[in-house]
């Protein structure tokens, strides 16, 4: 009886253990991005832009050329890179604190200009690296260290649905929201990331994939409980689906 290896680490991922907490879904999305880069055969002509946040050390894990951008400015750095070298595939990988808060202006205008870049947006409804503060995407009544009695819309506003907001713009080519809460969703997430990269390769403009993710440490849950919480609480507020498709 012979054995065939049917699942292994993608080539576009380095052989380094990540610094993430146990059960953090960043690792799943890193793997999916690396697998898509492998499948499209673009490892040698891809440039990534790392954010500020938990994924700040992304350049240690994805084995392509990488930038590190100032907080929230990854779409601006990616814009520069893509305009100078349109032959490269350029992606940013940003969290919700980075993209939806301090980087809100950059993402809106990069999308509105229809920059031909791909954005992977990790939405876990909290600031992870700095210790669990409220993010623009924190759900109503969700407790964080800066809203210990739960998010109150009178004081803090409502959670921002970034994918829907950007889908109202004319220019973007592909915008989708996916999650990694279960294996069936992971398969769809990979398809969405692949479509986003393909949109860029075909020159059809800005693409963004919002991935609903967990933060077991700052949510105060076991990793398996966190995935259940995500499914029960985040998906009803942040519906999954494709909001914009390339023409």
């Amino acid at each position: 009886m012979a054995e065939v290896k049917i699942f292994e680490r993608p080539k576009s991922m380095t052989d380094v253990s990540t610094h993430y907490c146990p059960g953090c879904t960043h690792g799943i999305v890193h793997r999916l991005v690396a697998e898509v880069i492998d499948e499209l055969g673009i490892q040698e002509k891809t440039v990534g832009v790392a954010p500020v946040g938990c994924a700040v050390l992304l350049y240690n894990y994805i084995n392509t050329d990488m930038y590190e951008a100032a907080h929230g400015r990854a779409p601006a750095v990616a814009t520069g890179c893509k305009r100078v070298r349109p032959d490269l595939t350029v992606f940013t990988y940003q969290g919700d604190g980075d993209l939806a808060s301090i980087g809100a202006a950059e993402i809106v205008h990069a999308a509105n200009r229809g920059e031909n870049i791909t954005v992977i947006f990790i939405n876990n409804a909290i600031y992870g690296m700095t210790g669990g503060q409220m993010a623009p995407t924190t759900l109503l009544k969700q407790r964080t260290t800066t809203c210990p009695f739960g998010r109150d819309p009178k004081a803090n506003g409502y959670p921002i649905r970034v994918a829907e907001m950007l889908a109202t713009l004319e220019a973007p080519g592909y915008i989708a929201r996916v999650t990694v809460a279960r294996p069936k969703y992971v398969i769809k997430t990979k398809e969405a990331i692949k479509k986003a990269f393909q949109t860029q390769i075909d020159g059809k403009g800005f693409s963004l994939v919002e991935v609903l993710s967990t933060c077991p440490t700052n949510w105060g849950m076991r990793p398996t409980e966190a995935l259940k919480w995500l499914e029960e609480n985040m998906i009803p507020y942040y519906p999954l689906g494709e909001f914009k498709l390339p023409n």
Partner: protein
Amino acid sequence: MPKGRVEVLEEKCKSCGLCVEACPNKVLKISDRINSKGYRPAEQFKEGCVACKMCAMMCPDVAIEVYRVES
């Protein structure tokens, strides 16, 4: 049913348990061993793996390799 085998790269595993939860045939568990990071790595403790790869798909640390046994 295809037959498979799961190999956990024990030094990469952080004992989060997402693979144990994802496995439809429940052939994985958290072991009693301790790796150099201080985590108890997951392991396949019984036969019954069908090489569906669901554990590997959910592993945030890419610590799982899946083999299909060809007869």
